[in-house]
């Protein structure tokens, strides 16, 4: 029995210790602030301005992000709370990232809500509860906690999507999101049930242990595992809005309140990738599950999703007229780029460390997309919100600060140096090329080439925003929502985008540390041994 499983057995037998309660401080802070909002909101008279709640929640989220930063080096026990949650640097990384993303999105929100006469405390409350779900989901060590956290993250956002009650599009977005989101949750749940049936446990590490005994396609439980794995993968693909489960994204992004869309795009992608890496690296090592259906495994599903998302997202974004819809399709394309990193890093256990490219890309994407939606929210007065490209005409010259921020965010999303987006794409494609150079898998080269070509296509519609903002005449007069919070939020996004673009070392180190720390919790000896045997068999097969 190796060290890891001894630690796990101890964690399973002992009741939660003080150190474990320290580890949940970030999520506790977020939940406490949310509960405080319920109480505070009761004592308000109708019509009292609630925008101070926004600053209150920003302070709470900043403290939560700071505490996860403080816990970064604390050397916690890995599996806490009876083996239900991992508190490693990986989960702390994502908890800090979503807290910052939510804080920036909330900072942009009050003027939009006030101008739509929906200045209610529930808005902040729901976003905070969603953040709590996200933090738990990044730490999930068991399919049970994973499912509960997924629902806690999604259900509040179904409500927030239709929060601007007078807007019929909000109602429609909320309905569509709810129906499709529930179906994907049900599919994922059915997958979890099948995995539970085949492996007899829902703990990620024990699943891997038990799968090591399912030797090949002749075993009875093998089909169950493959089907369950495909269903779980489809649930994840829905949440990151990759093809073929992407259709909800454009509708929901167009109908939802603008400030929260950036949070939806960045936060959901980040957390779902965290859970995706955890579940598929710890519970379903690629070597254990290959060979069922024509030798295909989950890496091939991810390959297909990456390829299709990059092509479809970029091509459909080109023909869009609405800027929010264009950003939605481009977020599908970004999901495709991140899946390229996922395929490259996990097609073979040796390239595990390339996963840091995904984490780094998520950081760059978060700031770019929240900045872009923050600028759109700044011009989001009720009845005269900026929606199409033509509405953007001349806004960049009239409001130079917002024009500058939008310029930086768009260049970063398109991947121009010296912004952060360039380095994000660079690391993703570099890991793909590296894998190709070492294994000579042409599939990897295909993905990278498609990625580069489609990001050239992407430059067209991102630059179109800037062309309209700076070079085209204004068709209509737009009065912005003068608000200091929005200006601060988008300024932070722009500064971080430039900072990471010019001095990326810190961000890269952090993402690498997070990925390295996650590896510590990976496989027991049995699993390791089986993986090595399978690899040896495969390399023998390839020699013949």
């Amino acid at each position, binding site marked *: 029995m190796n060290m890891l499983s001894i630690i796990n057995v101890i964690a399973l037998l002992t009741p939660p210790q003080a150190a474990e309660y320290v580890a949940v401080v970030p999520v506790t802070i977020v939940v406490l602030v949310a509960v405080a909002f319920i109480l505070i909101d009761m004592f308000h008279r109708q019509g009292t301005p609630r925008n101070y709640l926004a600053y209150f929640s920003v302070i709470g989220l900043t403290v939560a992000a700071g505490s996860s930063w403080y816990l970064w080096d604390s050397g916690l026990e890995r599996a806490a709370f009876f083996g239900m949650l991992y508190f490693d640097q990986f989960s702390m990384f994502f908890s800090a990232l979503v807290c910052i993303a939510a804080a920036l999105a909330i900072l942009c929100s009050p003027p939009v809500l006030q101008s739509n006469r929906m200045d209610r405390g529930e808005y902040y409350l729901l976003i905070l509860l969603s953040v709590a779900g996200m933090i738990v989901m990044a730490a999930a060590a068991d399919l049970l906690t994973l499912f509960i956290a997924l629902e806690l993250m999604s259900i509040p956002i179904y409500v927030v999507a239709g929060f601007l009650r007078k807007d019929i599009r909000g*109602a429609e977005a909320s309905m569509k999101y709810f129906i499709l989101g529930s179906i994907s949750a049900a599919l994922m749940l059915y997958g979890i*049930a099948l995995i539970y049936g085949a492996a007899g446990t829902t703990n990620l590490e024990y699943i891997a242990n038990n799968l090591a005994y399912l030797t090949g396609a002749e075993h009875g439980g093998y089909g169950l595992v493959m089907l369950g794995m495909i269903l779980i993968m489809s649930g994840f693909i829905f949440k990151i809005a990759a093809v073929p489960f992407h259709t909800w994204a454009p509708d929901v992004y167009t*109908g939802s309140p603008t400030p929260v869309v950036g949070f939806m795009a960045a936060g959901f992608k980040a957390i779902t990738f965290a859970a995706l890496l955890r579940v598929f690296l710890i519970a379903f090592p690629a070597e254990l599950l290959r060979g069922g259906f024509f030798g295909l495994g989950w890496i091939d599903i991810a390959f297909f999703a990456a390829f299709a998302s990059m092509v479809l997202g970029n091509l459909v974004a080109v023909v869009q007229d609405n800027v929010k819809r264009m950003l939605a399709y481009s977020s599908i394309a970004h999901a495709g780029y991140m899946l390229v990193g996922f395929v490259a890093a996990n097609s073979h256990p040796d390239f595990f460390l390339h996963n840091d490219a995904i984490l780094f890309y998520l950081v760059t994407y978060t700031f770019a997309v929240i900045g872009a939606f923050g600028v759109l929210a700044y011009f989001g007065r009720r009845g005269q919100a900026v929606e199409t490209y033509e509405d953007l005409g001349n806004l960049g010259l009239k409001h130079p600060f917002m024009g500058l921020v939008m310029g930086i965010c768009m260049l970063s999303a398109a991947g121009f140096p010296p912004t952060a987006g360039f380095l994000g794409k660079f690391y993703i494609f570099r890991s793909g090329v590296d894998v190709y150079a070492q294994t000579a898998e042409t599939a990897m080269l295909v993905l990278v080439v498609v990625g580069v070509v489609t990001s050239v296509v992407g430059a067209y519609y991102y630059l179109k925003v800037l062309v309209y903002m700076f070079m085209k005449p204004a068709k209509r007069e737009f009065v912005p929502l003068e608000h200091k919070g929005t200006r601060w939020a988008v300024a932070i996004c722009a500064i971080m985008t430039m900072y990471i673009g010019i001095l990326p070392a810190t961000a890269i180190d952090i993402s690498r540390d997070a990925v390295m720390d996650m590896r510590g919790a990976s496989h027991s000896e049995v699993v390791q041994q089986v993986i090595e045997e399978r690899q040896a068999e495969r390399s023998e097969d390839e020699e013949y």
Partner: protein
Amino acid sequence: MAWVSTLISYWEPTLAHYLLLSAAVFSIGLIGVMVRRNALIVFMSIELMLNSVNLSFISFARYRFEMDGHVFAFFIMAVAAAEAAVALAIVIHVFRHKRGVNVDEMQELKY
């Protein structure tokens, strides 16, 4: 009457029967979501999918003599209740705008 007990033991349901039933109910729910036009019926079909998952959890748990699956089923029930609350609120919200809950008529957001 020995043949009666023989027949009963022959028809005694096994794990596979429960799993087949669960898969059938899940498929009926999925088809219902795709085919039906009334939003309330669509939500009902989603509940059907969740409950069929419950059935397979319980049957796996009974098969293995474990409690994990039972616990999971309780969690699913709680989550399904929360989802139902949100679902009904959303239906009312849409009804106020449209005076109807036909999902075919939701065409504000397209392409």
